[in-house]
C-alpha cells in the first residue's frame, strides 16, 4: 500500500466560531483517523523520533499498538516515560522535535505523532477504569517545589519508584503554567486536573498555598525529613521593554493577562477577577505566550488584535500550529515592527476624567533584518523615519521573564547565573547537595516538554543519589 504523503488533518472548530469561545480549538482524531494516520508509520529500525523526544517516548511501539487497536496498550507505552501524555499531545512543538526527525519527513509529511499521542491519552482518560497501582513505599521522602510540568514529571517518576513525594505549590491550584498560562482553548483545565489526580492516586501529596522561599525554606524541608528537593519553580518576573507608557492602565504583562483569564477565570460571565475586555489590543512578542495572549484577547471580545513582533515570520518562535490558528482567527500580524512608546489618554481640561491614564495607542517603528546576532537569527535594525501609531485600548507585553528571586535569596549556597537562573549539572544537581532543579527556573522561559525532560533527568539522578546514600 502506498504511503499517503500528507499527514492527516485533525478536525478543529471553525475559525469564525472558535474566535468567540474558550472551548478547545482542536477536536482530536476519531478512532478511524488514528488508525489511518498510524498506518503511515514505517516502524523504521533507527527510530529517530525517540531521540527527538525530550522524554524519549517509545514512539514507534505505541503507534504499533494503535495499529493493533490496543489503545490502552499504546497508553501504557507512553506512560512508561511521560507523566503527562494528554498535555504533551496538545502543547509540544512536535515539528521541531519528534516529527522533525521522522524518517517519512525526508520525502513526505512526518507521521502526526503529536495527534496520535493526544488520541491515545484521550482514549485512556475516557475509557480506562483501572486506577494506577500505588507502588510499595521505599521509605524515602522527596519534596518538589512547584507543580508545573517539570515538578509533576519529577514527582510522577519518583512516585512510580516508591518514593514518598510531596509537591508544594504557591498558588491555590496545581498545574503551574499549565493552569495559569496556557489557555483553556489550547489545553482544557480538566485535562490538567485529571493528570494531577492520576499522580495523587500514585501516592503523591500535593500541597497548595505554600511558597517555598517564604512559607518554608529549602533548609526547613531537609529539617522536616525530606532527603532530596527538586526545584521546578518556573519562570519569574515579567520583562518589560522600558519604554515610556508601560505603567499606563491597560498595559499588562502576558503573565498577568493570562493569569487573570486562565487561573482566575476572568473569561467567564460575571467573573470575580476583572480583566479588560473588548476594544483593540496589541500583543508585543512572538512566542507561544504571545499567541496565547492574542487569541485570549480575541475570545474576550476584542474587535481587533495585533501581534507586534520585531523580526519576520521566519524567526517567530511560536509553535507553527498556534501561528496558523491565530492567523485563521484573524489576528493581525505586524511583523518587523517594534514599539517605542505606549500612548495614554489625558484630558488637559479635566484631571478627574475617568479615561485619564488609560492606553489609547502604541507608537512603533518598522524594522529590517541585518546581520545574524549571537542567537544566529538576523538582528532587526530600525528603519529611520518609519514611525507609526496603532490605536489600541490595551497592550500585552509578552517578551519573556526573569527567574523568580524567592528561592535564591533564601537558600544559602545555591548558585545562580548572571540572569538569575539556577545553575545545574547534566543531572539537574545544583550547587547544594541533595537539591536538584529544572525547567524555566534553570533555563528561563522555554517549553513544557523541555521542562518535563529536566524533571525526568532529575528524578533519575535523585533516585541514584538516594539509593547510594
Amino acid at each position, binding site marked *: 500500500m502506498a504511503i499517503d504523503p500528507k499527514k492527516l488533518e485533525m478536525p478543529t472548530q471553525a475559525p469564525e466560531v472558535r474566535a468567540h469561545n474558550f472551548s478547545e480549538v482542536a477536536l482530536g482524531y476519531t478512532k478511524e483517523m488514528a488508525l489511518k494516520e498510524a498506518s503511515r508509520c514505517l516502524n523504521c529500525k533507527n527510530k529517530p523520533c525517540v531521540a527527538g523526544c525530550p522524554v524519549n517516548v517509545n514512539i514507534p511501539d505505541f503507534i504499533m499498538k494503535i495499529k493493533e487497536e490496543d489503545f490502552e496498550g499504546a497508553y501504557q507505552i507512553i506512560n512508561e516515560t511521560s507523566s503527562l501524555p494528554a498535555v504533551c499531545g496538545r502543547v509540544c512543538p512536535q515539528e521541531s522535535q519528534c516529527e522533525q526527525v521522522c524518517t517519512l519527513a525526508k520525502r513526505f509529511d512526518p507521521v502526526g505523532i503529536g495527534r496520535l499521542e493526544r488520541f491515545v491519552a484521550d482514549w485512556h482518560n475516557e475509557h480506562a477504569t483501572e486506577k494506577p497501582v500505588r507502588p510499595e513505599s521505599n521509605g524515602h521522602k522527596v519534596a518538589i517545589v512547584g507543580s508545573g510540568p517539570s515538578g509533576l514529571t519529577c514527582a510522577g517518576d519518583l512516585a512510580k519508584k516508591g518514593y514518598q513525594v510531596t509537591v508544594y505549590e*504557591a*498558588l*491555590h491550584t496545581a498545574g503551574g503554567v499549565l493552569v*495559569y498560562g496556557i489557555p483553556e482553548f489550547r489545553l482544557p483545565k480538566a485535562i490538567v486536573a485529571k493528570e494531577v489526580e492520576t499522580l495523587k492516586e500514585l501516592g503523591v501529596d500535593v500541597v*497548595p*498555598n*505554600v*511558597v517555598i522561599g*517564604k*512559607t*518554608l525554606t529549602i533548609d526547613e524541608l531537609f529539617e522536616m525529613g525530606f532527603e532530596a528537593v527538586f526545584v521546578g519553580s*518556573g*519562570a*519569574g*518576573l*515579567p520583562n*518589560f521593554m*522600558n519604554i515610556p507608557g*508601560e*505603567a499606563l*492602565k*491597560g498595559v*499588562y*504583562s502576558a*503573565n*498577568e493577562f493570562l*493569569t*487573570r483569564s486562565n*487561573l*482566575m*477565570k476572568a473569561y467567564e460571565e*460575571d467573573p*470575580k*477577577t*476583572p480583566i479588560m475586555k473588548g476594544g483593540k489590543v496589541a500583543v508585543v512578542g512572538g512566542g507561544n505566550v504571545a499567541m496565547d495572549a492574542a487569541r485570549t484577547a480575541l475570545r474576550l471580545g476584542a474587535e481587533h488584535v495585533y501581534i507586534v513582533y520585531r523580526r519576520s515570520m521566519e524567526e517567530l518562535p511560536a509553535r507553527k500550529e498556534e501561528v496558523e490558528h491565530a492567523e485563521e482567527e484573524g489576528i493581525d500580524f505586524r511583523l518587523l515592527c517594534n514599539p517605542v512608546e505606549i500612548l495614554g489618554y489625558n484630558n488637559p481640561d479635566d484631571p478627574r476624567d*475617568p479615561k*485619564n*491614564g488609560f492606553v489609547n495607542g502604541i507608537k512603533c517603528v518598522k524594522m529590517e533584518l541585518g546581520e545574524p546576532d549571537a542567537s544566529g537569527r538576523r538582528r532587526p535594525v530600525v528603519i529611520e523615519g518609519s514611525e507609526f501609531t496603532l490605536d489600541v485600548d490595551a497592550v500585552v507585553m509578552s517578551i519573556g521573564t526573569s527567574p*523568580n*528571586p*524567592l528561592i535564591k535569596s533564601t537558600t544559602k549556597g545555591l548558585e545562580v547565573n548572571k540572569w538569575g537562573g539556577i545553575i545545574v549539572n547534566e543531572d539537574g544537581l545544583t550547587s547544594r547537595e541533595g537539591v536538584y532543579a529544572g525547567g524555566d527556573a534553570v533555563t528561563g522561559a522555554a517549553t513544557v516538554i523541555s521542562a518535563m525532560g529536566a524533571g525526568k533527568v532529575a528524578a533519575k539522578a535523585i533516585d541514584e543519589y538516594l539509593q547510594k546514600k
Partner: protein
Amino acid sequence: MYKIVRKKELNPTVTQMETEAPLVANKAKPGQFIILRVNEEGERIPLTVAGTNPAEGTVKIIFQVVGATTELLNHKKEGESIQDFVGPLGVATHTEGIKKVCIVGGGVGCAIAMPVAEEFHRQGAHVTSIIGFRNKDLLILEDEFKSFSDKLIVMTDDGSYAREGNVTVPLKEMLEAGEQFDMIITIGPLVMMKFVVAAAKPFNVPVTVSMNPIMIDGTGMCGGCRLTLVQDGKKVTKFACVDGPDFNGYEVDFDEAISRGRMYFEYERHAHEETCNLLKKSEGV
C-alpha cells in the same frame, strides 16, 4: 481550608480576624502580607499581617469592607473557614539600627502600622505615633498604639475626636520644632503617604512607605503590582510583592500608583453593589 478562630468588629467598616494558618504564623514579620481567597470562585486579594500567635498557629488580619471580596470575607463567621490563605509574602519592614521612629498611620492603614510600632517598641526604640481617621466612629486600635508608643497623637479630619486635621499637621510641627527621627514610616492611603513624604522632605528625614497595589499571585509572577521608582534620576520598575511592600518614599511615583490603583474602579464598584444585593437577598430568605 483556614478556620476563622476569632472575629471582632473594630468599627462599622473595619473587621479583625484571627485565622488558623500555622506555617504563616511561624514566619510572618511586621510589614509582610498574605493573599487569600474567600471561596472557590473568589479573587485573590492581598492583606497585610496585623499580628501572629505562633503558639496557637493563628494569623491576625484587619480589613476594611471596600469591595465585593472584603464584603464576602466580612460575612464569614467565627468557626467558618477561608478557602485559601498563603504567606507570608513580601519583605518585612526594616527595623534594625533605628533608635527613634515616627509612625504615621491613616485609616485602616493603622492596622498595618500597629504591629510595626509594636516591633520597634519591643526592640527598645523611641516610638512616636500619629494616627489619623476621618471621624470618631472610624477610630481603631487607639489602646494598642498607646501601649506601644512613647508619644501618641490622634487626629480626626472633622475634629469629632482628639485633634482636628490631617496627620501631616502634627508631623510638620514636630519637624519644625527640631524633633529628630531616624526614620518616618507611613502606612495609609496613597494620597496621605504622598503628603507625608512632601512634609518630611525639607527636613531630610528618611521616609518608608508601604505600598498596596493591585496584585494577583503575590509571588513575583504576574507583574500587576509594578510601580515606578526614580533612583538617581533614572526610572526603575519594581514589584511590590517581592521587592516591597516597603519602599523609599522619596523614590516612589505616587501619581502613577494612584492612577494604576483605579484601573478597575468602575468594575469594582459594580461588583461590590452586586455582592451586597446578593448577600441581602440570601439573608432575607
